[in-house]
């Protein structure tokens, strides 16, 4: 049975509105023109391919399922309280089992010695891993096995890319020559698609035989933890914007377009919120939420809902503290637009304020909104890690890079050090934030009329 957590529903909403927007762009030639700048750019294509894979992972991880169990005594089916996501089912071989404690990447033994009885004698040895690292598919020799697995995933990827090429590009190639604007960009698209699919294949194939990124303190696969963290990162980056956009857009336009008393009040509100250093505001709000949650534990059905609610509130609070910047920009822009001739003309023709806002103001401020949304995304992903470190981020039971880094602090100070948790969090976070940054640069260049286009 499907179950829907609160953040799931909002994430579907985001995907849904994204689809609506894409449809809208396809119908509107001038916006399509602007967006096409993004996809005429090498960096734009590569980063959007990578980001869409991250989004896809987050989406798969947002479809949750409860298992059905057959109860023999009552002859009824009951649902377990454990919630799985579609992603969990797909990558089952990676996280099916867990070990006792730390083990290094690709290792076949635990990372620390244990006393084990062999032939009635106590011996201090590194125990063998139970589930992975000792069950090679192709060859007994580890390096040879890894090489063969890689080769095999490479071949599989070539096959998949070939299928994609045939099914998607077939028509386009013969009709309009190219899917993108030139053969070169076409190649870049296929190339980045190829590398993404290859990386995923490799992680999957190697991940079912080895602990590719090691295991953590309780023996959980670090690769699995990193993959699960993608959802948290993406949700914080996107949900926050969804929460803040209505505030920013409506208040910004009201303040700028209507002006007067309304403007004064809205200005007062955002100046006040803006004057509080944001970390302190977030901290205060989260602390109060914690007090509420510890005092009312009965309102939450299980730990999943509890953690989910905390994630949701974190996004709300981040949204409430971050709308002020956008609101100020939109206010300034709407004030400018109020004086523009075509708006003045519509006023003299007797168009209502509402229709002027919908027809003239909103379409002309959208570029600021889009630039802000993509720019904020990476900053929010980074903020999550810092907030989780301060204990005012996501719930400690939620998979997140912030929590992984937090745990890695202790691992770095133990002897010998455990570096793989930190490394994996770094790797995944860096990839997401880097490509989000590159993407936002391209988008800004395409949408910002003042961008330094000559020098890019």
């Amino acid at each position, binding site marked *: 049975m499907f179950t829907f957590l609160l953040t799931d529903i909002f994430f579907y909403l985001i995907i849904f509105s994204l689809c609506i927007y894409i449809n809208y762009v396809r119908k509107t030639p001038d916006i399509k023109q602007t967006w096409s700048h993004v996809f005429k750019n090498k960096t734009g294509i590569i980063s959007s391919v990578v980001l869409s894979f991250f989004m896809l992972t987050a989406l798969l991880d947002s479809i949750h399922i409860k298992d059905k169990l057959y109860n023999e005594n009552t002859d009824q089916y009951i649902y377990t309280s454990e919630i799985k996501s579609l992603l969990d089912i797909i990558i089952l071989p990676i996280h099916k089992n867990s070990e006792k404690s730390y083990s290094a990447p690709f290792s076949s033994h635990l990372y620390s010695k244990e006393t084990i009885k062999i032939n009635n004698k106590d011996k201090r040895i590194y125990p063998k891993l139970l589930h992975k690292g000792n069950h090679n598919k192709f060859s007994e020799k580890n390096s040879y096995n890894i090489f063969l697995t890689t080769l095999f995933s490479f071949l599989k990827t070539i096959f998949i890319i070939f299928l994609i090429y045939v099914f998607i590009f077939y028509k386009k190639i013969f009709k309009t020559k190219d899917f993108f604007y030139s053969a070169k960009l076409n190649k870049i698209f296929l190339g980045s698609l190829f590398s993404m699919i290859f990386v995923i294949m490799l992680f999957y194939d190697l991940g079912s035989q080895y602990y590719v990124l090691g295991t953590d303190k309780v023996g959980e696969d670090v690769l699995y933890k990193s993959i699960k963290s993608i959802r948290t990162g993406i949700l914080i980056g996107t949900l926050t914007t969804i929460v803040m956009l209505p505030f920013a857009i409506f208040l910004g336009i009201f303040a700028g377009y209507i002006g007067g008393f309304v403007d004064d009040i809205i200005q007062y509100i955002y100046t006040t919120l803006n*004057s*509080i250093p944001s970390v*302190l505001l977030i901290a205060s709000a989260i602390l109060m939420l914690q007090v509420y949650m510890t*005092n009312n534990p009965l309102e939450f059905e299980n730990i999943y809902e509890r953690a989910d609610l905390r994630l949701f509130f974190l996004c709300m609070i981040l949204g409430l503290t971050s709308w002020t910047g956008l609101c100020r920009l939109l206010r300034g822009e709407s004030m400018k637009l109020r004086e523009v001739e075509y708006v003045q003309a519509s006023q003299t023709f007797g168009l209502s304020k509402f229709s002027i806002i919908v027809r003239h103001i909103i379409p002309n401020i959208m570029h600021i909104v889009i630039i802000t949304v993509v720019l904020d995304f990476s900053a929010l992903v980074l903020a999550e890690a810092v907030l989780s470190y301060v204990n005012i981020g996501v719930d400690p039971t939620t998979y997140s890079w912030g929590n992984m880094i937090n745990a*890695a602090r202790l691992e770095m100070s133990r002897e010998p050090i455990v570096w793989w948790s*930190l490394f994996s969090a*770094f790797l995944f976070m860096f990839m997401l934030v880097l490509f989000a940054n590159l993407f936002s640069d391209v988008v800004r260049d395409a949408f910002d009329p003042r961008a330094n286009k000559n020098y890019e």
Partner: protein
Amino acid sequence: MIKYILKRLIYAIPILIGVNLLTFTLFFVVNSPEEVARLHLGNKRVTQEQIISWNEERGYNNPLFYNTDEKGLNAFKETIFYEKSFKLFLFEFGLSDSGRDIKYDIKQRMWPSLAIALPSLLVGLFINITFALFFVYFRSTKVDYIGVIFCVALMSISSLFYIIGGQYLISKLMHLVPISGYAHGYEAIKFLVLPVIISVLYGIGSGTRWYRSLFLEEIEKDYVKTAKSKGLSESAVLFNHVFKNALIPILTGIVVILPLLFLGSLIVESFFGIPGLGSYTIDAIQSQDFAIVRAMVFLGTILYISGLILTDISYTLVDPRVRLK
């Protein structure tokens, strides 16, 4: 000028009142003092007497806004709002929930924060501007392109990695400086080097890009074309004209954060064990000492507003065309 500053100070009052009301609502209305006490004492097996005495010790036992037991002005004075929120305006921060004098702590902890934040700002500024000028000089070439990509990569790394990585490399592997701690006087320098280096390193990506875009914006302007058509060399134009004019936004951008330097950096200070206001805030958050958090919110707001006022004043100083009304 003085009239303008006075006007700005008066404008600041409603904002401070707003912030005050907001924190008051967050800390006392959303959760009653009783619930906060319950959290501190441990959720289960807490008797009503324990809660009452905990609140009494810290002065949370009064009514929120109006005390019906008292008469006259005291009816307003003997309330949580007056004691805990209004008194912030008089800079009376009171005692923390663990019984320490907040004002004394803040005074003590201001200076270590500044000792990290100020050098980080100055060194960072120097390095970022140097890099930015370098990239602008080589604009539209491979050097600029690779430089910008490099900056984006640096920007994409969380500050936590810089700190953990730096601590591991420099302190644990190379044993150059102590991992964490603090000493007063000249001894402090060896504890400050690493945090400053890491703060600077973390800021290079975004800082360089920001200054680069400022310079590029300036380079588009007409006076640059005039200077070039007069036959000035590229470097003369860049350093004598562009750099000087771009200094205006750079300087005013710095002035706004100057007062906030006292607040310190939350993460850097707590990682390096520096007894500044940043680690003070973190400790307060982690031990859920709400009195300190309230005081810091108020202090942060005041510093932010004073930064804004200073910015306006600095505009008139560096740019004679700007007049304040």
